[in-house]
């Protein structure tokens, strides 16, 4: 999910930006090294693909919906830093233009959906080597791991309260972890896995 503005305490916002800004700077440098006339259609096309695939909202039982992200796909096709910056850029545009996800929460959303997704997916894929279903497993795991991160960040927000009345996101870890991680294990992880598997195999297949 894209955390909207107002959901996170000021402390969380400052801490997340402090952590993410150096990562963005380093990742941006990596992107600049790799980006040229030859790679632009591929990196640009994959970033566009991440944006487009996030528009395919899939309803699940329980009255919510979600979508694939595409970070793992870019990470295993290119490298995780490129994927981290590409998906961060997608999240920035979604937030600024379409009001999908907040500005104050952009660092947390980028850490979860872009950074953690890209790196967990990449290393799991490397660990599994080139097995038949490595892209699926990498995609599924990355979605589950990043949902756990988002669940923890949201679930600690009730700590900031006024006489027991939460000031920000009101539900604790006992609610956020089953809701977010559970739905990613059962549904959105599968969606991410299938997406990563199909597109990876199709793009890599020799003609």
């Amino acid at each position: 999910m894209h955390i909207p503005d107002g959901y996170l305490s000021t402390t969380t916002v400052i801490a997340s930006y402090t952590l993410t800004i150096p990562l963005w700077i380093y990742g941006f440098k990596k992107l600049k090294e790799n980006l040229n006339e030859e790679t632009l259609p591929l990196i640009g096309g994959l970033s566009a693909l991440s944006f487009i695939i996030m528009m395919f909202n899939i309803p699940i039982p329980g009255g919510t919906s979600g979508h694939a992200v595409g970070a793992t796909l870019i990470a295993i096709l290119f490298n995780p830093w490129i994927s981290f910056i590409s998906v961060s850029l997608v999240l920035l545009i979604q937030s600024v233009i379409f009001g999908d996800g907040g500005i104050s929460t952009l660092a947390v959303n980028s850490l979860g959906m872009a950074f953690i997704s890209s790196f967990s997916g990449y290393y799991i894929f490397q660990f599994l080597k080139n097995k038949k279903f490595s892209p699926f497993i990498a995609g599924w795991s990355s979605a589950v791991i990043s949902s756990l991160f988002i669940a923890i960040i949201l679930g600690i927000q009730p700590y900031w309260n006024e006489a027991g009345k939460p000031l920000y996101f009101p539900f604790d870890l006992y609610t956020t972890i089953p809701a977010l991680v559970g739905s990613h294990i059962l549904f959105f992880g599968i969606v991410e896995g299938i997406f990563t598997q199909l597109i990876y195999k199709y793009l890599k297949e020799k003609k």
Partner: protein
Amino acid sequence: MKKRLYIILSILFVFLPLGLISEYSAWGEWEPETYKKLLGFIPEGIQNAHSFSIIPDYGEGNVIMYYLSAIIGAGIIYSILYFMVKIKNETN
């Protein structure tokens, strides 16, 4: 690889309205009123958050606006990367 990537993008683009089928929002991405219903109050931070966007919620369910949102969003993302290449080439 490039050609195939653009084939995928074109197919997804055609089927874009499928993304509008779900009437549900993502877990936690609720209207402030939902908190009022669930808790009896809206948390201060959520109440005070003012969100500004140029095309709210990708056109709020309108199919034409959804297509336009995809073109604008993907277009801006691609353009930013394109200009990064331009600037890089000029400074070299």
